[in-house]
């Protein structure tokens, strides 16, 4: 069955903001409801409102793969599936989509490309490598979102068929080892690249900064964590570096 004209595109665009209303009560739920709404507009009058409300119930999974649940639930609504079956479908998708997304993206595609980019920079590719990273990463990222939404809409309640697809299984099997290779390849190159001599005051500043971060983490371990501090300081260093040049 064909979706309403332009509805899949609208849902895809709205899915980019799926984490915008994240909260402990519904997690991604409200974002999912908003993204699903364009796909529900051609439902009969009495069905539209309860379907949108169902769409906004509790949901949590990997943000890039959430489209699969959005498409599947919208399709199941059109197929006239009973409400409690749609609720159960949504609940059953949280876990597998979360673990699939973690393996595919956070432990696969992202560190794989990061490793290759770091290696390329260490070998002298400079800003081209950074631009290449942003472009290639996001081609994969948006393609995954689009595939997920389409697969969900195509299969509806039988969406596990899409998750068993050989292409996906092959990607999972390849990405792990490829990621490990890229990061292993990048580490020694990055170490040599960073080991260029730098002045005494720079070394001192690095030691003092590390000490301050350590103290800050001990002091506010409830609010701060290593990753946030590292990202924040990297951003500051980047800005200072650009101004200083």
């Amino acid at each position, binding site marked *: 069955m064909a979706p309403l004209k332009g509805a899949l595109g609208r849902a895809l665009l709205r899915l980019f903001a799926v984490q915008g209303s994240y909260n402990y*009560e519904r997690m991604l739920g409200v974002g999912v409801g908003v993204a699903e709404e364009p796909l529900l507009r051609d439902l009969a009058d009495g069905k539209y409102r309860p379907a949108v409300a169902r769409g906004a119930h509790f949901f949590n999974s990997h943000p890039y793969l959430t489209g699969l649940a959005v498409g599947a639930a919208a399709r199941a609504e059109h197929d006239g599936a009973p409400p409690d079956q749609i609720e159960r479908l949504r609940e059953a998708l949280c*876990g597998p989509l979360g673990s699939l997304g973690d393996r595919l993206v956070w432990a696969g595609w992202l560190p794989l490309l990061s490793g290759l980019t770091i290696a390329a920079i260490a070998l002298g590719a400079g800003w081209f490598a950074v631009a290449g990273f942003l472009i290639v990463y996001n081609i994969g990222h948006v393609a995954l979102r689009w595939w997920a939404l389409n697969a969900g809409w195509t299969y509806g309640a039988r969406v596990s068929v899409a*998750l068993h697809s050989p292409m996906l299984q092959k990607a999972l099997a390849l990405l792990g080892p490829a990621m490990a290779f890229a990061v292993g390849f990048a580490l020694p190159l990055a170490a040599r690249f960073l080991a260029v001599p730098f002045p005494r005051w720079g070394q001192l500043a690095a030691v003092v900064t590390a000490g301050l971060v350590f103290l800050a983490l001990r002091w506010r371990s409830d609010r701060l964590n290593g990753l946030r501090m590292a990202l924040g300081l990297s951003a500051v260093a980047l800005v200072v570096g650009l101004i200083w040049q």
Partner: protein
Amino acid sequence: MSLALYRIDDRLIHGQVVVGWGQPLHVSFIVLVDDEVSSSDWEQDLYRMGVPPQIEVIFASVDQAAQLFSTWQTDERVGILLVGDIDTAVALAARVPQVRRFNVGGVHHRTGRKERLRFVYLTDDEAAKLRDLAARGVDVTAQDVPTARAVPIGEFT
């Protein structure tokens, strides 16, 4: 070694269960007790997908669980028993007196439920059922991940 964790979690199998609890406990099997899931092939298919191949997943209804409980209890591997709602937990505890504790790991928002903890939302009725369970000698605590504090029942119902 037998069952190391009895957990109430409405998302059933997800990362927190498989990685968060599964890894430190060295879990080799997960028993999922749910009357609806035990009779639904597509749901079983989806839940199995979130689990690495070396971990066995067993689906059972409350009736089947009551019959098979002793075999899980004497299994030499370590396992986790999961239920998706308070009613299933109460029914299981009533049928199987060896169930002496329940970990409330995640019960999320639904119409009529109030926030008790960040990961526990309960209707007044559900809270009363949990207190009943505790009054009958079952140790009920709320804890989402192993590194968090186990919150005693009196603090969240």
